[in-house]
């Protein structure tokens, strides 16, 4: 390597940046002792580097907020949900649910929820064998505001009680909350009301297109009320969720005792 190569501008930059191998750096240092212009360049580079740092103040960054990432839902679940809804709506349109009494539908909801509670814990549930290509996914309420994710779906196996489906949600601590959706029952109130039975906390109401029951075991009643209010709002297609409702959900989550269901 000649002196001119050894002391090229690019090499001097790497020398100032400490990027040369030790032996190469030593040769450059020795050559600089005899080359005033190269030494002046090194001095300039060192000053330039220091001044660039001084001249570039760090801009005010936005607050450190990480994007919320939800646990991944099994890919089959939205399809299965859509398939169940299609089957459910089909059954309802055939008038299967016209014969039932209000109490019997809630009994079916309780039975479906209790059956789910006896099954394997959320996350290890077997894959549902229902898929429907082309169906609209994500038709069930998104309860992520209440820290609940959809993990389970079941149709009323008999269909004799008017048909219905149970969407099972699980919270961050494994708490299970079931949402029962069945044909409209005129006897139910328009707003979620307490219908506890068989050791389960139940909030039931009716909407325009279906009746709903929210079920949980050992869950804080205030938290269940908050979730029911959220579901009622979502199923009525009301835009947005009031800030105070979100705050109430958060408060119930943090204050209430742990769910045992």
């Amino acid at each position: 390597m000649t002196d001119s190569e050894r002391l090229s501008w690019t090499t001097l930059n790497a020398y100032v940046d400490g990027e040369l191998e030790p032996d190469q750096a030593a040769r450059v240092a020795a050559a600089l002792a005899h080359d005033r212009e190269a030494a002046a360049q090194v001095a300039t580079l060192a000053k330039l580097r220091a001044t660039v740092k001084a001249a570039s103040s760090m801009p005010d960054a936005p607050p450190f907020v990480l994007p919320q990432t939800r646990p991944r839902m099994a890919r089959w679940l939205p399809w299965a949900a859509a398939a169940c809804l299609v089957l459910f709506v089909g059954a309802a349109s055939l008038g299967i649910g016209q014969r039932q009494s209000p109490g019997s539908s809630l009994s079916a909801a309780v039975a479906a929820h209790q059956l789910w509670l006896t099954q394997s814990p959320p996350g290890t549930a077997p894959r549902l064998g229902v898929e429907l290509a082309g169906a609209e996914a994500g038709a069930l309420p998104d309860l992520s505001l209440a820290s609940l994710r959809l993990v389970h779906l079941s149709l009323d196996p008999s269909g004799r009680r008017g048909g219905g489906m149970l969407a099972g949600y699980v919270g961050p601590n494994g708490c299970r909350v079931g949402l029962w959706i069945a044909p409209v029952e005129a006897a139910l109130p328009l707003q979620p009301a307490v219908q506890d039975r068989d050791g389960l906390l139940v909030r039931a109401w009716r909407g325009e297109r279906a009746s709903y029951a929210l079920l949980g075991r050992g869950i804080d009643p205030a938290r269940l009320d908050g979730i029911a209010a959220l579901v009622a709002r979502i199923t009525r297609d009301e835009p947005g969720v009031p800030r105070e409702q979100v705050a109430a959900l958060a408060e119930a989550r943090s204050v209430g005792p742990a769910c045992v269901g």
Partner: protein
Amino acid sequence: MRIIVERALRQNWERLFSYALRLSGSRDRAADLLQSCATKALAAAPPDEDERVRAWLFAILRNIWIDEHRRGEVSASAAEEALEDEQWRHDDRMIAVITVRQALERLEQPYREVIELVDLAGFRYGEAADILGVPVGTVMSRLSRARLLLLNAIEGGSVRPFAARQRKRANEQ
């Protein structure tokens, strides 16, 4: 894995924003870039070696920016010009915070970017090469070219430190 990425994001949040700002030139776009970078990083598997996570984050941010804004322009902008074999004529006394700041604004984006990575973010040449997706030799030549352009811009700039201006005037008289 998520904890490692979260910690790296927290530790480099401001510097990543500075880099995003340097790339995009807009605070809003830089903030969007930063959020996209965090989302993508949290969903991906970081490098096994902890010391590579920081450069990995910068590379993610840069790739998002290229995907969104610069597709098709990168190869052209990264073309390296040969360094001119010119007489050394720079005056250290012209190098000051105000002249450097103004000169940095005038640099073309690929040159500002390499200065941001090496001089400000403190990456080694090899790390900067990984982030930029170029060989180490390209980082060396681009950086030395960037500094030469910076010195030229300082010399030719209209803003000069007061003392240097007085000396220059005295020399001219």
